[in-house]
């Protein structure tokens, strides 16, 4: 049946593509410059009637096919948009007036371009310049850091090509994701954005609120990041080459002591994983069982042994793109090759990204057939395990005792007297210890992904006012992962192991959109759309585990000691119908309305539909009212939206799972008995203004959103028969302001200086959870748990803490250690910042461009699990205090705390092991302020002028020096608060053996032929 349905959908596509008429199209070309005559590369030229578009090349030239009487819309970020009606000329040179950002063209839903002045909600065109130069080693999206008001980006620790966690306007989803939806060329991404090539990106705009959801569906209620990829240009042929070489190094590491080495109680022990031994001095400290390490090993400080572990990371990206086109067909082809090596040795990536986009204009421009295929093949070696996984090399590298020499640790294995290969480690067979060099060489993995993204769309201009778009798109990923553990990988794989994962995930969207666009009168314009979407998400996979190897170090399924396999499947289908319309009055007053109904397979059949809507108004007051002369433009906007959401597949019934070994187990969560769709309502008010002859632009937005009836798990008494049950509940409120201010400080012909400030403050509050439920905790481990408390901001971190008396003084044990609460009962902080800000300075002087971006995060707390362990290991700098004579709480350490009784001096080993360590650390003793200010980006580029390239094959040449994350201007924490170990909400504000964030410096060369 479903196959038949799909067949019908395609039948539509085929039927629509037949039987149309040609008319007169020809090439129109020209040059786009600013008001000073300087060419503007990358300006957008769109034929209003056909929606076909192109961008200008490096010299500001464009060619596009258009008919007489059609309108060209020429726009560029930061310049007033111009419209030109094509008459009998074939060349139109355009000088754009700088300053009025409000006439920007913004790409909104479904790839539709609208003028920003019409929009009733906040959107920010991201300055994507340099995105193909700075190329973050981890994730493309990291290049938005500091540039979008209120965007919070945290990086995970998988090394090269890591997932990032992106949040706009605060966390809102208790059990699901609070991350925005990515839309590429009007099509939602099913997978993530990590592996897209920055070279293919033409523009990025960010819809911060949930107003886009009516068009993209519920997944956009956390906002949407809308990416438009490059297209070919009619009548032109150009070849561009872009090469970037980037080097990166850790930008922050823990502060280690270098006075004491391995041992305990001041006594040396070559077995010890701690550094509570005697003072470092010249004596012999032979710890190795390897016959290859002979002679004496001095018992001396090795201050760099942790830093030595890291490499200089390198990344080489090469892109070649070809754009060409005729009036009937334009083509963009891009190939990007990425080779990256991370700062952890062996962590490498090789990626091929091929992108082909073809637009056909047929039937005299009435029918447009667009197709894009993007094939991405990635190979990642040794993706880093995260958190306290025993195969996370950072767990072991950070814990190197201070006397261990790099040269000895690097000899990570040896052959023992029985001929077995053994790990060379100071405490053989330790549960949780390993030589980090063993881990990177003998706990290996390889991840292969093949991803195909693509769409085909047909747009038919039925008549002057009416057009129909039909489109089908896929995002399909095949994923395989193999893990190879060599024998003697303590505890996790004493007898070696081999694990594999194979999975496939698919997102498939089928859409239609009927658009009616008409100027009803001179003053009244109408745009009406009716659309439908059918979305299928499907994933399935198999994991295998050898359970040990029979023959040592042969990694094959057939060499399994105890092979087990598991399988997973997930499938969802959502059908939607929606309508949206915009009514404009005098091009200055606009009303926006949207309505959408979704039918989801994951909801109970009898109640599987949910509806949502939005309504908005924008008024360009400066067109109606006489404003003070310094105000050029003033627009007020407001919008209200309500978005529904479904739930995860298979959530309606309590099932039993079949387990390897022949067991059957009931699932432990009870389904919601009366499941209601989730809802988010949001209100947004703002204004966009331009002052002082368009030299100052200010966008300001106030918003408030409430997410109610969320579906989440509530822990219930385990003796009730289940450990948790799904319930509908919650009211999570986020309220805040966002402002973007840009100022043209210098606007000379030669020297220009623009500054853009962005600022955002979000206040969250848990208004309600569920009947009788005042707090909800989840995501716990030995260190902390994450909790929502009614009446408090979102996401408190709870851990053990100091027991205090009524005056808040810390109670002391007789031995001089503070009394620690028995449970994780102390609210030690909240990660969410008070505000986020960015300052982008951009200078240009003749052919030079210089930019730098300062990124500010103020407020919030972060706690480091690594730090508690390094403290109890005697490794942190502060653990060296008082090794002779002891330390007193409140005097020598924790001077900001007042003890309730005069503490006795305690030896630091007893002190730090009582508050630190893995199993029951007191998180309160390790919580830190997460505020920081950093130089996020800096770049200097030089574009060679036409004159200097006259006798070369090049049309243009540009050389740039780019730095990212160069240094902290201030940082109160001992870690980078941005580094997390996974994108789950509960990982906010929690560091656990994370990869240090890196500073990178790159050299970029762009050649245009």
């Amino acid at each position, binding site marked *: *049946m479903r196959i038949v349905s799909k067949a019908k959908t395609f039948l539509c596509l085929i039927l629509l593509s037949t039987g149309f008429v040609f008319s007169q199209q020809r090439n129109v070309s020209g040059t786009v410059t600013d008001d000073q005559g300087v060419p503007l590369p990358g300006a957008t030229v769109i034929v209003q009637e056909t929606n076909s578009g192109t961008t200008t090349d490096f010299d500001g030239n464009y060619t596009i096919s258009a008919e007489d009487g059609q309108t060209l819309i020429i726009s560029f970020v930061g310049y007033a948009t111009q419209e030109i009606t094509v008459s009998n000329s074939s060349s139109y040179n355009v000088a754009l007036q700088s300053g009025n950002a409000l006439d920007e063209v913004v790409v909104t839903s479904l790839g539709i371009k609208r003028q920003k002045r019409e929009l009733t909600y906040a959107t920010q065109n991201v300055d994507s310049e340099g995105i193909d130069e700075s190329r973050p080693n981890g994730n493309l999206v990291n290049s938005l850091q500091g540039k979008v008001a209120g965007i919070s980006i945290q990086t995970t620790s998988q090394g090269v090509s890591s997932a990032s966690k992106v949040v706009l306007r605060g966390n809102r989803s208790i059990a699901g994701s609070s991350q925005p939806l990515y839309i590429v060329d009007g099509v939602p991404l099913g997978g993530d954005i990590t592996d897209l090539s920055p070279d293919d990106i033409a523009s990025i705009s960010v819809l911060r609120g949930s107003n886009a959801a009516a068009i993209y569906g519920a997944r956009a209620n956390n906002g949407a990041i809308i990416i438009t990829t490059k297209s070919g240009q009619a009548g032109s042929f150009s070849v561009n080459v872009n090469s970037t070489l980037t080097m990166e190094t850790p930008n922050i590491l823990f502060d280690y002591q270098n006075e004491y080495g391995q041992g305990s109680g001041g006594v040396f022990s070559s077995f010890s994983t701690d550094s509570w031994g005697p003072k470092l001095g010249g004596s012999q400290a032979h710890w190795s069982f390897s016959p290859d390490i002979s002679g004496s090993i001095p018992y001396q400080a090795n201050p760099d042994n942790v830093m030595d572990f890291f490499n200089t990371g390198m990344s080489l990206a090469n892109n070649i793109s070809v754009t060409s086109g005729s009036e009937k067909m334009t083509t963009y082809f891009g190939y990007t090759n990425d080779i990256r090596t991370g700062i952890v040795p062996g962590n490498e990536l090789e990626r091929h990204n091929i992108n082909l986009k073809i637009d056909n204009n047929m039937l005299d421009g009435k029918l447009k057939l667009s197709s894009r295929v993007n094939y991405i093949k990635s190979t990642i070696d040794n993706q880093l395990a995260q958190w306290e996984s025993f195969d996370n090399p950072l767990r072991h590298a950070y814990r190197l005792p201070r006397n261990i020499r790099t040269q000895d640790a690097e000899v990570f294995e040896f052959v023992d007297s029985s001929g077995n290969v053994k790990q060379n480690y100071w405490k053989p067979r330790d549960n949780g210890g390993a030589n980090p060099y063993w881990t990177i060489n003998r706990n290996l993995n390889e991840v292969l992904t093949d991803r195909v993204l693509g769409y085909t769309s047909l747009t038919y201009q039925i008549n002057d006012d009416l057009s129909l778009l039909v489109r089908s798109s896929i995002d399909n990923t095949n994923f395989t992962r193999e893990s190879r553990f060599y024998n003697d990988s303590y*505890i996790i794989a004493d007898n070696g192991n081999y694990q594999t994962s194979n999975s496939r995930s698919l997102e498939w969207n089928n859409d239609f959109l009927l658009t009616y666009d008409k100027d009803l009168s001179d003053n009244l314009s109408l745009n009406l759309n009716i659309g439908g979407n059918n979305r299928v998400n499907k994933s399935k996979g198999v994991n295998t585990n050898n359970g040990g190897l029979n023959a040592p170090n042969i990694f094959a399924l057939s060499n399994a000691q105890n092979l087990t396999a598991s399988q997973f499947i997930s499938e969802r289908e959502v059908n939607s119908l929606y309508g949206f319309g915009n009514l404009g009055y005098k091009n200055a007053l606009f009303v926006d309305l949207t309505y959408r109904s979704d039918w*989801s397979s994951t909801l109970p059949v009898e109640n599987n539909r949910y509806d949502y809507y939005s309504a908005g108004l924008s008024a360009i007051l400066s067109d109606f009212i006489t404003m003070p002369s310094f105000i050029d433009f003033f627009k007020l906007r407001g919008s209200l939206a309500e978005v529904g959401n479904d739930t995860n597949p298979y959530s309606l019934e309590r099932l*039993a799972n079949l387990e390897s070994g022949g067991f*059957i187990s009931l699932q*432990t969560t009870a389904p919601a008995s009366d499941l209601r769709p989730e809802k988010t309502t949001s209100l947004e008010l703002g204004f966009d203004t331009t002052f002082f002859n368009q030299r100052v632009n200010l966008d300001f937005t106030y918003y408030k959103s409430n997410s109610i009836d969320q579906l989440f798990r509530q822990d219930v008494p*385990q003796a009730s028969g289940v450990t948790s049950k799904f319930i509908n509940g919650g009211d999570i409120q986020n309220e805040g302001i966002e402002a973007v201010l840009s100022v043209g400080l210098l606007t000379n012909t030669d020297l220009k200086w623009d500054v853009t400030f962005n600022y955002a403050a979000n206040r969250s509050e848990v208004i309600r959870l569920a009947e009788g439920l005042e707090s909800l905790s989840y995501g716990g481990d030995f260190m902390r748990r994450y909790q929502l408390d009614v009446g408090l901001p979102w996401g408190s971190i709870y851990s053990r803490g100091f027991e205090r008396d009524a005056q808040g003084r810390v109670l002391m044990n007789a031995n001089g250690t503070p009394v620690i609460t028995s449970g*994780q009962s102390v609210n030690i902080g909240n990660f969410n910042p008070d505000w986020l800000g960015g300052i982008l300075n951009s200078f240009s002087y003749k052919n030079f461009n210089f930019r730098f971006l300062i990124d500010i995060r103020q407020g919030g707390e972060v706690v480091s699990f690594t730090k508690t362990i390094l403290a109890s290991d005697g490794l942190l700098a502060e653990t060296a205090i008082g090794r002779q004579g002891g330390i007193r709480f409140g005097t020598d350490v924790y001077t900001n705390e007042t003890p309730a009784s005069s503490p006795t001096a305690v030896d630091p080993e007893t002190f730090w*092991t009582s508050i630190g360590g893995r199993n029951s650390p007191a998180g309160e003793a390790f919580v830190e302020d997460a505020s920081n200010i950093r130089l996020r980006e800096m770049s200097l580029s030089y574009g060679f002028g036409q004159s200097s390239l006259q006798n070369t094959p090049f049309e243009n040449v540009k050389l740039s020096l780019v730095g990212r994350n160069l240094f902290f201007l201030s940082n109160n924490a001992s870690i980078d608060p941005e580094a997390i170990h996974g994108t789950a909400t509960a990982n906010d504000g929690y560091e656990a053996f994370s990869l240090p964030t890196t500073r990178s410096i790159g050299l970029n060369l762009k050649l245009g032929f």
Partner: protein
Amino acid sequence: MKYLFSKFILFVSLIVLVGCTEDFEEINTNPLSLSTGKLAESQVLQGQAFAQAQYTSMMGLHWRFQISQSLFSDLWAGYYATTAVGFDSDRFTQVGRWADLAWGSFYGISAPQIKLVEDLARESGNTIGEAMAKVVRVNGYHRITDYWGPIPYSQYGNEELSVPYDLQSDIYQNFFTTLDEASSALSAGGSSFAGSDRMYGGNASKWRKLAESLRLRLAMRVKYVNPSLSKTQAEKAFSSGALITDPSDNATVSTDGTNRNPLETITDWGEFRMSATMESILKGYGDPRMQVYFDPAAAGDSDGDGIPYEGLQNGQTKVTLGTSQNAGHSDVNVFYRDVAKGGKNPPIDVLRASEVHFLLAEAALAGYNVGGSAKSYYESGIKVSMKERTGASDADIAAYTSSLKTPVSFDGGTTPAVSSIPVKFNESNNEIALEQIITQKWLALFPNGWEAWAEARRTGYPRQYPRAASDNPDVPKDKIPARMIYTSSEFTTNGEAVKAAISSSELGGSDKNSTKLWWNKK
């Protein structure tokens, strides 16, 4: 015309998109899982669920075993001392998160299965299967109430946001009633869940022996608090004629490569060693089980007694443990270690014949009518244990049972022996006889620390060396904890009920590791 045509296409598209929600139910059905309806139809599937209940109620999975038994009762029963720096429970700190996971391992994983199988068997008229599930219920819950005292039992599975606790006295009364029902049903013979039952292959008469042996164990548990109930139930068990007296009837949960003996995995982690108490007793008695339970210390004889088996005093400080204690002390025998290193992945002990002999010995000592003398049962208990564990000859066993040897110093003379009782049964002093019976039962139970800790609390035997240090102000280093504190998850999810349990007559408002359980009344 074209316009109309387009309208038609639009109409078709709408129908296609909206009309195909009819297979949504099928899409939202997970083909890899079972509905409860499917389970109800098939005894084979119920058997697989039952096997899970058997394995998990013994904390079969390695980490569940570690956080529930290895880190608590195994240490507090004095079998092992910890050598891992971070394991504070050997200094009597009840690490909260471990206890939370232990509670959750039973209530979250085992209890639902026990109820499921018992309910489905009852509903389908499978009386043998229902009786087997009841026996597993009694076995599982008695272990939990022996840890905590009052627990949710009769109201388990009420599907409410509050689940009341039952008093331990009421729970024990219900255990005996439940065992009556089970034993009666099982006495008809026959079998159920034959293909899946990991204990007796579905054999009803063997299950009846476990039911009656459990009755005997529980009867002796209440000896001090309710002597008449104890006597009645012990004699009832004996008179059933269906006790596990021969090792061929031992109750064990079989293991395989996937569902392993948890000890087999966790011994590999090198986090505990033979206790000083163990060394004192085994060495003093010249007990051949020493070589079967433990291995020589890797570093050889360190206390100068010429015997390379070395025990570690419990409760070492973090500073002492900062230097590795593993090489200097005896690991458990290779039999219990990783298969790849020569381990045997043995079945998991639930109740052994030797324990039954010692239970009967104590019953006889208390004057119950159990068809034999305390001495004869004591000696037969030793014999059964020796035979199955070591294969010792009758003569050797006879020499052992008549031996006057007593425990010795564990550190070559610096510290005195842990006790002065010999193996030879003392027929004149009942308290010494009791210490002998329980000490020998403690040796025979190894490695079942869960039961050994319960009996150590009830009787005070075997005597144990004091801990090197206690971090728990409620439990001094020369005592052992009397129970587990309630878990934080219960306070957050079932607060009213757990507070009511604490203020009940049995706990008297005290939720400490030193608060005695109902049956702990010696």
